[in-house]
């Protein structure tokens, strides 16, 4: 008897819930991909889902996996740090637009060096990560840092062991700035590192740098702040030395969103609303708070990777 009444109560509750769902007509958007923008995407999707009739989910599974999923049609949108080429976009019938930019920063653990004290030029950075500069008191480093007492200590390079968009941004930068790096190592989500040891994801790199005196690594700026790691100064385009919180910081990466051109109409409307909110001042403020650099829709439209049949429908 008791069981029967329980069952009927459950059935009634289920009916009630189903009814509610129909009335509210909630749309669920599922996204997956790049881990580099994950902190800001999590904040955005949470805030947006709270205030609107749309539930947006984002899983950080990696850019490559995200691209595979959007091509397979298992997600509604995908995030990628390495943009697809014009040909690939046309071939797989996708639309691509930039969402947000973020800084990648070298992090160091050297005795006597505080945050933002050490200056590293592009060339020195490349040489350190190639294993050509092996001591912290190398003439090339001390020449850039006349006032800083640098120890005679071996440099331990720490890199991302898993393939990642952060590595892509970092190696693209070095490939762009240093001809030697371009020919010996090159750029990619994972590369053949000439020296050093690998850490698992951003937290792994941060932990390895924290634990090993004399080490240098690279990570997304948010993680560097969270882990209270020592960041360095780099040279901006105008030749001045800047910290990673500056708008002139040279080592930045843009992260993109991918949408299928055959997205169903209801999901398309919901995703359009979400994307246009992402370019709003509210969303931009949240991104800035998380140490990303937000883009305006106008800036996004200027990107050379702003591609695809639906691009004008999504970023106006």
């Amino acid at each position, binding site marked *: 008897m008791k069981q029967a009444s329980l069952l009927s109560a459950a059935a009634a509750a289920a009916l009630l819930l189903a009814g509610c769902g129909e009335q509210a007509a909630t749309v669920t958007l599922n996204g997956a991909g790049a881990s580099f923008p994950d902190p800001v995407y999590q904040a955005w999707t949470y805030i947006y889902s709270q205030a609107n009739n749309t539930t947006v989910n984002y899983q950080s599974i990696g850019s490559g*996996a995200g691209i595979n999923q959007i091509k397979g049609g298992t997600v509604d949108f995908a995030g990628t740090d390495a943009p697809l080429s014009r040909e690939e976009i046309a071939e797989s019938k996708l639309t691509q637009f930039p969402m947000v930019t973020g800084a990648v920063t070298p992090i160091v653990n050297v005795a006597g060096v505080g945050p933002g004290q050490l200056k590293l030029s592009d060339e020195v950075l490349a040489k350190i990560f190639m294993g050509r500069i092996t001591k912290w008191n190398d003439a090339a480093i001390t020449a850039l840092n006349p006032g800083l007492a640098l120890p005679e200590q071996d440099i331990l390079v720490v890199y991302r062991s*898993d*393939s990642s968009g952060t590595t892509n941004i970092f190696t693209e930068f070095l490939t762009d700035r240093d001809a030697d790096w371009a020919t010996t190592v090159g750029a990619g989500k994972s590369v053949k590192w000439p020296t050093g*040891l690998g850490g698992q994801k951003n937290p792994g790199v941060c*932990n390895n740098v924290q634990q090993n005196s004399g080490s240098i690594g690279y990570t997304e700026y948010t993680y560097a702040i969270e882990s209270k790691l020592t960041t360095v100064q780099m040279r901006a385009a105008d030749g001045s030395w800047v910290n990673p919180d500056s708008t002139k910081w040279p080592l930045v990466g843009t992260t993109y969103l991918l949408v299928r051109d055959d997205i169903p109409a209801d999901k398309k409307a919901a995703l359009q609303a979400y994307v246009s909110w992402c370019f709003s001042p509210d969303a931009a403020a949240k991104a800035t708070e998380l140490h990303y650099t937000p883009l305006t829709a106008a800036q996004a439209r200027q990107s050379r990777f702003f591609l695809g049949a639906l691009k004008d429908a999504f970023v106006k």
Partner: protein
Amino acid sequence: MRASAWSDPVFRWLCMACAALCGLLMVAFFVQLAFASGEAWSRFGLNFFVSTEWDPVRHVYGALPAIAGTVCTTVIALVIALPLAFVSALFIVDAPPWLSRVLGQAVDLLAAIPSIIYGMWGLFVLVPLMDRLWVALGVDNAFGGIGLLTSSLILSLMILPYICAVMRDVLRMTPPMLRESAFGVGCTRWETARDILMRYGIRGLLGGIFIGLGRALGETMAVLFVAGNIMKVPTGLLDGCTTIAATLANNFAEAEGVQRSALFALGLILLVMAFVIQVLAQYYLRMTGAKRGEK
């Protein structure tokens, strides 16, 4: 119709189907891995086994560093875990019942700890400890506690409970009369353990070792955290290294094209390694069976 008239054949077929499924799955794994790794084999050929190159930018891949890392960590882990597992199994079998039960359950609990926990413990506790140890000993350690030896230590800790649990059961199965006779003719405890228990249960003991070996070969997360993930053949105990399983975990999510195929090829190599070890072990036991007095 009486139940027994049809229940036996049904049960028989059910068992056969389940057993066949295991076999089929195994074959399917081989076929799938061989199929998916085709591109890598046709591109690199047998050179894949001896090449130390792993360059995702230029799409050149070789398996030697991962194979070497896997073999080294596994062998060192076994060397550490084996004596420990054997003596703890011996002690647990001979200990007073209440102590034996407590210790036995503690060992079983070790086996239930997820490997990620071992990995985190390794990274946050064991690695700094090892680092301090090498600094105190004045040994030059470029990688700060991370590397081959630390990975092997973690692995040995992880496989110890498996080996110990199997050994414990095997030792318990030795007929008491054999042990009592041994004591009766004046054997010491060690002589009894070596000449009676070990000989009687050699098949089971080796079985325990191979369970541990299989686990060590394929262990991923714990090694990933402490190995250093360096695509080079380790030349010393303190060198950073990588293993096949760790390489797969690091690269699989983002891999495309040739790299994906090369990763499948690594997976195939791992599966073949485990398979060959099993076959060789069975073969060895059969060959030496006569010497141990088995028929």
